[in-house]
């Protein structure tokens, strides 16, 4: 393990991400900025070896390291006006955990440390990794190019080498500068996203309630496994779910920084999994209806929709139409994977049903997601039956739940290779943090929080709850 290299990567990613945030005029509290600086930085870094490869530059330590340094410096330019921001590490307003949070924090920290350890320690053994990005990264390290001896192999049983080079690129970077197995970039995403998600919840609901719901989230068996097993689905979840949260915030509050940042996060999500634009198209009506209600002219609605999709569309075109179609020395026609009988929509409804009956409410489903969805439906039922009025942000976030559910069924319908027990099962990860975001806006949980806060008599917490209630 090269600790200095790892530390330098973290710093580079932080400042690169901070530059992205500055460019996109995104704003948030210090925890949000710090966490998303790292996540955005990982996203930007993941394009670098890929673009070097497309530019026919040999992938050596010097070329990759130089490109990373140059990229970091370029993204620091927007920060120059704010030199204080660059050189002052974020001042977190640490509050000491209250007594009742301590056992929960102990469990969360233990789970996070265990995940990081396994990510560092266990060699990747998922077939999708060893027959695709893992092998590709390993060969690119020794043969200095994505065009390497992988294409002299019998590849009839795999198409994993055709996946977008998000993982390949990060594996190359981390294997070159951090540790033998790479992989630790996944821990960076996991820790940053988890800290942000938890802090976002604690900001709005009582810490004990947040801790209880967060325990259920952290202990979702299948999701936790993918926090240390490198594959596409966890990173895709991070970028998509966060993007959707900021899109919801934009729809509710109208801050263009939220919109810009959401579009950026969706772009990275598309780079991780190229089926993401299908979900984004399903999310567009949320944007269009909201703008239509605000009496925005149709041309502007079209322009905004275009801006939300343009990054994702470009990344899709680069990955699928340039990289796969023309760059890789193997002819692979993606259209062969598309369902030839799209007029028959029966399988779409079958998949929608199977997600519920075979993935969520089934014995294997319990092993994948535990009682996560049962609890969500219980909370939602109380919200709808008792409180009957949801805030706009809550409604938009629920729209995100629907978008992922219908979108995954649609992906399975359009691309039959996207099977229920692998692609859809792991794609469902995206719903989990979106549901956690919903909890932060649920009237039932909000009421419960207020009751506990008032009973507890903690003035600071009371003030926080009052502020969040006003925001609602």
């Amino acid at each position, binding site marked *: 393990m090269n600790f200095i290299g790892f530390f330098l990567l973290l710093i580079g990613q932080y400042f690169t991400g901070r530059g992205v945030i500055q460019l996109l005029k995104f704003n948030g509290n210090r925890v949000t900025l710090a966490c998303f600086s790292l996540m955005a930085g990982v996203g930007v870094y993941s394009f670098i070896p890929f673009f070097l490869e497309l530019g026919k530059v040999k992938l050596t330590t010097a070329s990759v390291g130089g490109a990373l340094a140059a990229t970091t410096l370029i993204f620091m330019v927007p920060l120059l006006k704010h030199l204080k921001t660059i050189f002052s590490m974020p001042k977190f307003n640490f509050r000491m955990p209250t007594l009742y949070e301590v056992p929960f924090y102990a469990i969360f920290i233990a789970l996070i440390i265990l995940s990081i350890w396994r990510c560092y320690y266990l*060699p990747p053994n998922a077939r999708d990794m060893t027959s695709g990005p893992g092998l590709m990264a390993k060969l690119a390290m020794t043969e200095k190019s994505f065009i390497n001896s992988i294409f002299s192999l019998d590849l009839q049983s795999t198409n994993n080498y055709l996946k977008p080079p998000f993982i390949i690129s990060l594996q190359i970077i981390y294997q070159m500068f951090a540790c033998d197995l790479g992989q630790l970039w996944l821990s960076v995403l996991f820790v940053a996203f988890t800290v942000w998600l938890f802090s976002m919840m604690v900001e709005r609901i009582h810490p004990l309630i947040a801790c209880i719901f967060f325990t259920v989230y952290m202990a979702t068996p299948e999701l936790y496994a993918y926090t240390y097993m490198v594959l596409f689905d966890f990173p895709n979840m991070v970028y998509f779910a966060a993007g959707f949260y900021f899109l919801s915030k934009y729809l509710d509050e109208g801050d263009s920084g939220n919109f810009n940042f959401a579009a950026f996060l969706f772009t990275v999500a598309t780079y991780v999994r190229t089926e993401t634009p299908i979900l984004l198209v399903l999310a567009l009506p949320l944007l269009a209806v909201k703008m239509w209600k605000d009496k925005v002219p149709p041309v502007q609605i079209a322009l905004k929709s275009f801006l939300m999709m343009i990054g994702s569309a470009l990344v899709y075109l680069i990955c699928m139409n340039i990289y796969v179609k023309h760059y890789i020395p193997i002819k692979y026609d993606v259209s062969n994977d598309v369902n030839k009988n799209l007029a028959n929509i029966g399988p779409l409804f079958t998949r929608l049903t199977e997600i519920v009956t075979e993935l969520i409410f089934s014995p294997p489903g319990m092993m994948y997601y535990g009682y996560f969805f049962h609890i969500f439906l219980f909370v939602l039922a109380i919200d709808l039956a008792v409180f009957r009025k949801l805030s706009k942000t809550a409604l938009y976030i629920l729209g995100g739940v629907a978008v992922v559910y219908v979108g995954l069924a649609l992906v399975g319908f359009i691309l039959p290779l996207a099977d229920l027990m692998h692609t859809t099962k792991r794609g469902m990860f995206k719903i989990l943090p979106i549901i956690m975001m919903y909890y932060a806006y649920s009237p039932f949980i909000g009421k419960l929080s207020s009751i*506990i806060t008032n009973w507890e008599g903690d003035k600071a917490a009371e003030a926080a709850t009052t502020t969040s209630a006003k925001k609602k």
Partner: protein
Amino acid sequence: MKKLLLFIVGLFFLVGFFQIKVYQDWKDIKITNPDPFEQFKVQDLQERIKMRFGPAWELCESMKSQIDTAKDRDSALVLLPPNSYIESQNIRFNVPEPAVIYYLCGIKSTWTTGANVQKANYAVVVVPGRGLAFKKIEGPAELKQLLETYKNYQPAL
């Protein structure tokens, strides 16, 4: 006092939560096992790979040890038996696909339906009663015979 009460509520929740079967199984099977302190004692990368991949890694190692000392190592191409054939011989082992074998040991291999199958000069074969073995193919006749044996079995993962 109120904080203490909330602390007790939280503790009760955690204890109760990890008594629920699905979370108890998860904790016992996936979290506390394998023991990270035991893992800490084994830091060597090759050992970690060996533990992670088990029999597949052992197969690759046996191939590598033979091919590395062979004169034709640069042109070595290993014919893999279809997994359905291995299963029909009552052997419980899944031969990894060529890409995974290349990932593990850098040796090229091919399924029986591979474009270069006629160039195969080594093979993983089934030895009745003993399991799998790795051997050199002694000429086109033996290759033809192996392909004939496998012809009714489609290679698959």
